[in-house]
């Protein structure tokens, strides 16, 4: 397409994600969206906090949760946050190959996280019979953690789409904002996870 060319100047500016009006709009709009997401997750957290002792005779948080797996998941996700920072670093240095590489690592770590989560859920269901329907606590737990997991899944799909779509065409002013907003999204997922492991798992262990 001829337009690609016109958006692909000789020198990339240092912040290619904000060089065009479209890019600026995307950047700002996405931050605003994250503001809304904050409220969204606050509602889920609030619901969870209100219902965390409503076990209806089923297993309690303390009985269910094991810290090892959660620690591994946390490390995976935190590291993936750093790798996406590396990717943006290379984007700003106009090094497309390395950017793709680091985003690729991010995706792998994300998949690792997701796999752990799926394992965790099946474990609870098969070992403890603890499901979405067993108690209000169960509903709140799976909904909160599941919403986060859903965000991770969506993020991975988004990232893979971006990487394949742009593999051949390199970095330009049209797709730089897309990569950048993805990285914001990914960090936000991490922020949410920090509160999940604190409020759901660690505080669940404390009682």
């Amino acid at each position, binding site marked *: 397409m001829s337009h690609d060319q016109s958006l692909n100047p000789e020198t990339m500016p240092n912040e290619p994600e904000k060089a065009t009006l479209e890019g600026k709009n995307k950047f700002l709009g996405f931050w605003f969206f994250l503001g809304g997401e904050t*409220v969204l997750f606050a509602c*889920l957290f609030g619901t969870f906090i209100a219902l965390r002792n409503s076990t209806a005779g089923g297993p309690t948080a303390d009985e269910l949760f094991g810290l090892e797996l959660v620690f591994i998941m946390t490390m995976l996700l935190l590291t993936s946050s750093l790798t996406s920072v590396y990717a943006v670093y290379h984007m700003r240095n106009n090094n497309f190959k390395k950017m793709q590489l680091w985003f690729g690592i991010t995706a792998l770590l994300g998949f690792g996280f997701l796999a752990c989560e799926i394992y965790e859920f099946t474990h609870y269901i098969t070992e403890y019979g603890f499901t979405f329907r067993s*108690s209000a*606590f169960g509903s709140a737990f799976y909904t909160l953690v599941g919403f986060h997991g859903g965000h991770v899944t969506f993020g991975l799909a988004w990232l893979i*789409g971006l990487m394949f779509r742009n593999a051949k065409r390199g970095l330009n002013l049209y797709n730089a904002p897309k990569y950048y907003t993805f990285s914001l999204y990914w960090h936000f997922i991490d922020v949410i996870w920090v509160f999940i492991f604190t409020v759901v798992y660690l505080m669940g262990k404390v009682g």
Partner: protein
Amino acid sequence: MSIAAAQNRSFGAVLWDYLTTVDHKKIAHLYLFGGGFFFLLGGLEAMIIRIQLIKPENDFVSAGFYNEVLTMHGTTMIFLAAMPLLLGLMNAAVPLQIGARDVAFPFLNSLGFWLFLFGGLMLNCSWFLGGAPDAGWTAYTPLSTTSPGHGVDFYVIGLQIAGAGTLIGGINFLVTIVNMRAPGMTFMRMPLFSWTTFITSILILFAFPALTIGLFLLMFDRMFGSAFFDVGLGGNTIIWQHLFWIFGHPEVYILILPAFGIFSDVFSTFSKKRLFGYTAMVFATILIAFLGFMVWAHHMFAVGLGPVANSIFAIATMAIAVPTGIKIFNWLATMWGGSITINTTMLWALGFIPTFTIGGMTGVMVASVVADYQYHDTYFVVAHFHYVIVGGTVFGIMAGLHHWWPKMFGRILNETMGKLTFWTFFIGFHLTFFIQHFLGLMGMPRRYWVFLEDQGLDLGNLISTIGAFFMAFGVIVFLINIVYTAVKGEQAPADPWDGRTLEWTIPSPPPFYNFKQTPLSRGLDPLWIEKTEGKGEMTPAEPLGDIHMPNSSFLPFMISLGLFIAGFGFIYQVNHDWAYALLFGGMAVTLVSMLIRSLKDDHGYHIPKEELEGEAD
């Protein structure tokens, strides 16, 4: 694609144009017609309510049907009529007021509309599929979780889809106003309607997520067997009330703030005066929005939250009267010393002041906790909120429609019919709702299918119903006015009202690219400044050049349609396996459309400079 669009197009072409448009002005038309349609529907439902209550123990409709009608009346009016109509006016006026060629995300703008429309259709499909939702527009659990049939499911899915559209619209306006203002159009020079749109969008952004989550929880309980509101399994029904009102109270300011903006512009235009206390008006708006998030539990005084919570929320609620009062007095001061023209637009604005003040007063009265133990869930509250919603939002929409109709459609609405509409509606309104304050105090709770004979409630209800017929008459005259204007109406010049702001500097209706050259604003009321300083037109801020335009797209329609189909899948998978086909099929349509959107680069097109030079102004 080029701008050489054919002049006389076939119906099919026009339809296709509207189905795919990303032009904010056309999306405004869509919102107005969509919202207008639902307003008539909601009004029809209101008439059914009033006819049922014309006399004691009436049996015009059955108890179950009454509850459906009442639920759908509230839901339709709030989500499908008032908000879309306001979004329509915002789309029509705001980009023009700030000197922008379009909104920040034209594609999302169109997506927002189609989501709203399909959400609204979804909700109303329930009428034909076994019954509408019947748990009130507030859908309190566990009444809503235990309501039999699929009615409440339609409420859940319909609002979820429409709500997503609104959220998208909100973000779109936020970015538009932050990033797309023309040179010189600083924040403190923006017309008040643009300001209130901005603040309203913030409210949308932070309030709607609470509704989204509330609806998800309701959906999970009803369709997937979770136990959020199932007390037997440790659930808690108060959570819903909190989530609903954390959304719901800001929602009422989402409804009123844009109307405040419209009135500000109208008062200043028709008094030929600059808005008095512009800065105070802006900060009052911000303050209302800020406080608006801290008062939701005033809908829950009777729930039993305890005296501490009740007192805190009562005081926070009363505090909102202060910034609102600032606005009322500034409007009065704007007119003070002015040269007031009273036409239909201005009549709606003038009718608003006493009406809304009364509504606000009763608002403060219901905020007084112990008094609210009597008012709560009675017709006193019904009277309160119709005074603010109809007297504020609906009057505001009517004022806005008369004000911007020429800009949107190129024709001026007929004044005689306009005045007739105003007077019948205004008188009918007060007949209907003033008496309801007393009905409430005399012991008539709201959401009552029948009231009993000989309890002193007969006469008041009769008067109320008669008033509703006056309103219906006014609405019908307005419909005739629209048709008449479309056929025979007076052609509108660019600036029919001796306007003050940028939308009046371009032709009516504006060309699709809005401003041939982006205008330079030199202060508040930029056009007025140019008028008084003798020039009468704007100085361009840029030389004539190519204009970049977005491409039309059918994808927003498809994305929304997919969700619409999937919605039926979600509802019916509970008791029919075939529904999974709808669920997955619909989701596939949506996801594939989204995928196409993200994989296909869409850079828009340019209108070459030469072509623009050929166009007359």
